[in-house]
């Protein structure tokens, strides 16, 4: 009599390695990514060679090529931007103000705004630039 051998049960493929890889990728993106409010309009920062590393945090004022303004990603007029920064400065006096101006923005839109922000008491105002030769 010939006895039929039971077919071997196929062992399921282990998914532990997959979970590890996915988890590492997730942690990687979480660590290197910085959540930042983008401007509601196109902003191409000016090129500069001598810029230093941009620290995180703070408030971001975006200036478009035509002089449009945005505070932390929301469009705002000049008065709203200044009042928003003033209230933020009362909570955090050493608040970093990042001015993200389009490279084609005329200085009449930028310099008076920076002077007004400085007059509010901001001591740390930086201009966002892209590393590169102008």
């Amino acid at each position, binding site marked *: 009599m010939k006895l039929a051998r039971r077919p071997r049960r196929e062992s399921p493929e282990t998914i532990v390695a997959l979970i590890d890889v996915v988890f590492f990728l997730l942690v990687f993106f979480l660590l290197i990514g910085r959540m930042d409010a983008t401007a509601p309009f196109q902003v191409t920062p000016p090129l500069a060679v001598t810029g230093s590393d941009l620290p995180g945090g703070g408030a971001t004022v975006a200036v478009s090529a035509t002089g449009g303004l945005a505070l932390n990603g929301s469009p705002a007029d000049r008065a709203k931007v200044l009042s928003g920064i003033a209230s933020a400065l009362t909570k955090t006096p050493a608040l970093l103000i990042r001015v993200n101006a389009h490279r084609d923005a005329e*200085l009449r839109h930028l310099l008076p705004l920076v002077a007004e922000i400085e007059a509010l008491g901001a001591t740390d105002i930086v201009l966002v630039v892209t590393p590169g030769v102008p």
Partner: protein
Amino acid sequence: MQLKRSRPPATLISLVSMIDVLMIMLIFFMVTSTYLNLDMVPMAERAEDSAAAPGGPGASALLIRLAADGVPHVQGRAHSLTSLGSLIATRVQADPATPVIVLPSAAASTQSLVALMDTATRAGTTSLRIIRLEVRP
């Protein structure tokens, strides 16, 4: 006689849902992230910087006027960024405390101002100020 009921084997927690969540989060971060290489240039003078700012009253300042077309002028003469850089370097070599003062036109672009600041910094200046004229009735 008391019969002991055998314990049912502990059920394994399924990992499939966790993997699904991880995968969705991963795809979310991959799709929504934009990677920008950004630097910064200081625009306001900090208190500690102003205390240590060189360029006392004895140092003669170099005034650069930035025209609306982005061309820098020194004493009425137009300069390219290269010639301006060498001019600043010469002045800074003669007197390291030479302050550079930039008077930009309101119609000049942000890029032209940043390029000028870049040139001055590369030429070795440690004191750079931007001044602007305000029209008041």
